[in-house]
């Protein structure tokens, strides 16, 4: 409350102060007998000098910022195409900084130099075809160079990934990232959003297999908020439901009725051979591990609104769009350890950030990225794919594949031979 009064008081006093100044000024200018619109030579010269002075401040400020902050945060690129892009960025910067200095210099210098001098008339110079031609053609040529270089890089950066590039899916939702590695076959399993289950259940990513379709149908019909439950609730005379509640539930039921039809169609059309594509996929949260010098093709998906997968250090970005799969490829070429040394910061991590406004916690939506040397990467990946067994054939580390998540019972410790038979049975041949 006190501060509010203080703020108000300051504002009022400020206004009064300016009013007083104006009054004094008005009186003095009445004495001078010149109109307000006539600018005195003194004022003209003062502003001319200020123009020149401002130019130095502007240039000085820019140079200071450039030296102090120019490349600090950005750091050097950590991907193959990133180096080329940084080179291109530097070329472009040299050009535009030159233009910036030159034209701003001319502007402020002319403003300073050609201030009105009593008795000197301005030079009548309405046009000059040669000059105008020159400053149409020169920018055009410079821009042509920029375009040619730029498009070359653009085409390379957005070209199809090589067939052997590692496929990884990045799934975005309010407000987290989930990664899915394509596993042994380097092929990502199919998905359909209607199969999505709650977070923290195996099928959060809506992968499409025979069982997940059945699961989704079952849940939609008989789950806690399934159609049966909804119908029962709506028809129950005993309990009171407020009108809003009722209309919400009715809408929900309608929705589920139309979705279930689609699910049954899906079931009918589903080919079991596709299941295998999904079974070996590995779902990974919190941290994305990448292998140095391997090309990756990322497939992006979104569950709810548009997000953007932004990897500042790899100079990579792609929006994730609900209803659409987008792609981007890059090859990391500096491990996290190397980057830490280079940046002299042992806590440095690569990062995947969300770069498209997606709701209140947009700013917190991120995933750490770790780039490992090939050896370390394999040591990390191998158990994820195949698990580890001790000499008795018991799992000490179970694989982290989708199959394990769907059928944990099959991976209970039993005799190795049994498990292998069962696992083999449950994975249809491709």
């Amino acid at each position, binding site marked *: 409350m006190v501060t509010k009064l203080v703020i108000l008081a300051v504002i009022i006093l400020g206004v009064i102060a300016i009013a007083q100044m104006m009054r004094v000024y008005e009186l003095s200018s009445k004495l001078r007998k010149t109109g307000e619109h006539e600018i005195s030579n003194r004022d003209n010269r003062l502003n001319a000098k200020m123009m020149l002075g401002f130019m130095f401040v502007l240039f000085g*400020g820019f140079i200071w*910022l450039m030296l102090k902050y120019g490349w600090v945060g950005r750091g050097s690129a950590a991907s193959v195409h990133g180096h080329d892009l940084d080179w291109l960025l530097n070329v472009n910067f040299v050009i535009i900084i030159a233009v910036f200095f030159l034209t701003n210099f001319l502007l402020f210098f002319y403003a300073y130099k050609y201030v009105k001098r009593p008795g000197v008339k301005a030079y009548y110079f309405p046009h000059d075809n040669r000059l105008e031609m020159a400053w149409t053609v020169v920018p055009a040529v410079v821009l042509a160079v920029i375009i040619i270089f730029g498009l070359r890089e653009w085409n390379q950066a957005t070209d199809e990934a090589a067939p052997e590039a590692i496929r990884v899916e990045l799934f975005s939702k309010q407000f987290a990232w989930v990664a899915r590695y394509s596993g042994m076959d380097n092929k990502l399993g199919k998905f359909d959003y209607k199969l999505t289950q709650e977070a923290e259940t195996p099928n959060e990513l809506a992968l499409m297999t025979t069982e997940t379709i059945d699961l989704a149908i079952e849940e939609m019909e008989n789950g806690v908020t399934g159609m049966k439950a909804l119908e029962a609730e709506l028809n129950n005379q005993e309990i009171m439901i407020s009108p809003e509640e009722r209309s919400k539930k009715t809408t929900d039921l309608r929705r589920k009725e139309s979705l279930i039809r689609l699910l049954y169609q899906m079931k009918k059309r589903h080919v079991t051979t596709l299941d295998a594509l999904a079974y070996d996929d590995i779902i990974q949260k919190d941290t994305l591990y990448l292998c140095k010098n391997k090309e990756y093709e990322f497939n992006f998906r979104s569950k*709810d609104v548009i997000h953007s997968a932004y990897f500042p250090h790899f100079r990579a970005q792609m929006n994730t769009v609900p209803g659409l799969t987008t792609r981007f490829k890059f090859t990391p070429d500096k491990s996290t350890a190397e980057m830490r040394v280079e940046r002299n910061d042992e806590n440095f991590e690569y990062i995947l950030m969300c770069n*498209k406004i997606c709701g209140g916690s947009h700013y917190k939506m991120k995933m750490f990225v770790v780039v490992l040397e090939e050896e370390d990467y394999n040591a990390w990946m191998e158990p994820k794919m195949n698990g580890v067994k001790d000499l008795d054939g018991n799992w000490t580390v179970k694989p982290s594949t989708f199959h394990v998540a769907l059928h944990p019972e099959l991976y209970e410790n039993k005799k190795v031979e049994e498990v292998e038979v069962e696992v083999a049975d449950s994975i249809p041949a491709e």
Partner: protein
Amino acid sequence: MAAVAHEAHGHHDDHGHHEESFVSKYIFSQDHKMIGKQFLLTAVFMGVVAMLLSILFRIQLAWPGESSDFLSFFLGEKWAPGGVLSEDMYLGLVTIHGTIMVFFLLTGGLSGTFSNLLIPLQVGARDMASGFLNMLSYWFFFISSVLMFCSLFIETGPAMAGWTIYPPLSALPQAVQGSGLGMTLWLASMTVFIASSLIGSLNYIVTILNLRTKGMAMTRMPLTIWAFFVTAILGVLSFPVLLSAALLLMMDRLAGTSFYLSDIIVSGEMLTNHGGSPILYQHLFWFLGHPEVYIVLLPALGLSSEVIATNSRKPIFGYRAMIGSIMAIGFLSFIVWAHHMFVTGMNPFLGSVFVFTTLLIAIPSAVKVFNYLTTLWKGSIVFTPAMLFAIGLVSTFITGGVTGIILADAALDISIHDTYFVVAHFHVVMGLSAVFGMFAGVYHWFPKMYGRVMNTRLGYAHFWITIIGAYGVFFPMHFVGLAGAPRRYYDYTVYGEFDSGSLEQMMDLNVIITVFAMIAATGQLLFLFNFFYSIFRGPVSPQNPWNSTTLEWTTPVEHVHGNWPGELPTVHRWPYDYSKPGSDVDFIPQDVPLAEGEEEH
């Protein structure tokens, strides 16, 4: 606010040649000069609101999580619990700030004020082609302003999806609370705004084409008029597309259609929408959005052309090239829109095409800059406050234009799209340039609006504080962006978790930026004070205070209906006969016949 101001200034300049009722003179006026002033006052009010909003969120960015009395004073417990801005309201403030600045201040305010004031006066017409439609255009603008302003005060908060309101975020109230009633009001407000803009633009076009006085050939029109003309055409062609984008969004929100929605699960609800495309919205939006940036900029360039020529006492250099550039920019602005969408997953080849067209637009922009520079060269410059702002505009247009070249390079845009670098780019090139152009216009034509002159010294102080503050805000912002900082983040301390070097840089720069923003905002008080004080107490202006050549300065200082008391003036020459050799005065108004043996420029 606007209404109050009108009432207040009812005390002066009614010497009552016509017996008019108060209402028809000051409120439902059909006189273009009055309507221009109405636009200006409404826009000034909206501009102050938007500026205040920006200060509120800048406080959070510079001192994240720290309690501030200033925030609780304006936002209360609901949106600033304990004096700390809430995450959702942060997005709300950013969204409404952007919307008001782009549409209400720089489109409605800038075009609305100066097209209305200057078109009839500079082409020599008694009024707009349709006074009634003109009045309607203002009142639609007023209603949309009220709607937008009110949306700040509702329970679930204003729209929170950014000024570009990309669906699905803007379509789903479950995704963010501002997408409930707040977004409905946003869409309603913009729909009315678009109607206002269309009516206004059609009126401007018709007036310019049909009501030019005798001798006022198209090639004798001042560049202001050319700029307003092309701006109005851009508006007429592109705003309807925004309207359709908004209507489809409305349908998705209210009627269950799926234009922009497909395969969505939001807060646990599985939606049935399938087959729509959020990208479609972006195409529609930017088909307006890009021309829109020139709708904002061109009038500012037009005004400053006039101010620079007058105060350099020289003809604008390359008059025809300037017209050509305006038209080229206008045309090209329709075929560059997808440069805002390089990373939406669109076809890379399509991307290449847009790289090409976008970089083409830099050529006419460069031509304009060089022409301004040459106009100053060997001039006899008079530093009125308007002239200072016009020079400021040229500087920001250069500084912001060059960074556009980087952004237009799709390959480079990959890593800087949606970072603060973009924010810096468009604030400098569009925000600052247009605001400077607007200030130049207000200082220069204030005598035409109110018959008085604004205080010069305060004008100087206002300019220097503003340009220093403005560069102080937006120069550092480029470096925040180059470091990779995404825009629309509530709190950059998240960097602490993975990159302490960047964190330090960002926090340093964010404090610098906020401090300069506060300085610049305080500087605007000088303007507000000067403006309102001068309306009532400024020294009375002579008829042609700046020794200009254009027709508006041949009208009497006291406003009369029909602008000229007698016959309409006849035009004999182009508008830039300053310091013409063979003449002993340094300006020859357009209505002075050619002397014997004198050649037209």
